[in-house]
């Protein structure tokens, strides 16, 4: 199935966004060979950071050139610092720091998309900036 997904990604003429298995062992050349950018979601906790640290060399080996960390659930300057320091040590650029946002949990509890639940929420604002940044990079 994974190389079939890879073919679909390759043939797609649309902006394609793939939510991938968290288990990096399943990332293969088949699924990711046509991926331009990999965003690795991290939280300011060691296990999430270490997962990212393992994904990066694997993704590079599989030919993905642009890899970014996107930090989530940031509650303090210490959290930011922890993420930034880990990422710097692992040659990982941080594309954005998303704040811990109560709206996300509330939306999830309501069974709704965060965009529908509260489009003015801080996470939505930050992700809007991320989308703009990615579009500008692609246009450059």
């Amino acid at each position, binding site marked *: 199935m994974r190389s079939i997904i890879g073919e*679909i990604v390759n*043939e797609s003429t649309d*902006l394609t*966004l793939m939510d991938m298995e968290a288990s990096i062992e399943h990332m293969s050349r088949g699924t990711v060979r046509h991926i331009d950018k990999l965003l690795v979601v991290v*939280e300011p906790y060691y296990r999430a950071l270490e997962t990212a640290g393992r994904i990066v060399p694997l993704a590079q080996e599989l030919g993905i050139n642009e890899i970014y960390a996107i930090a989530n659930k940031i509650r303090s300057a210490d959290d930011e610092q922890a993420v930034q320091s880990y990422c710097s040590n692992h040659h990982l650029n941080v594309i954005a720091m998303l704040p811990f946002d109560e709206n996300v949990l509330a939306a999830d509890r309501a069974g709704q998309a965060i*965009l529908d639940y509260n489009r003015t929420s801080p996470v939505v604002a930050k992700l809007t900036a991320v989308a703009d940044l990615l579009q500008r990079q692609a246009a450059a």
Partner: protein
Amino acid sequence: MKIAISGKGGAGKTTISATLARLFARQGVPVLAIDGDPNPNLSRALGMDTDNLAAIPRSIVERRTDESGAVKLALNTSPADIIRQYGLQAPDGVTLLLGSRVDHAGAG
């Protein structure tokens, strides 16, 4: 632009994927979102009604034996047709493909 989003489970990957997909779509860009997670939650995060979402049927692939006798799965439907036929409509015009499992129940 083709983006993959990964990370440890629970870190927010699906919320971020779904939100980015819809934000790009709101800029007027056609967006294909693929749920490659074996625990498929992208549809809910996109804001879809998740009852009765049809998985891609098994009939899109067939077993073929190559010259060396190895049996492989190959697509017998083009990727474009798969997207057209099995892509689900999500809010803001995002097309969602449930990519993590293929329905074994039969031809769709």
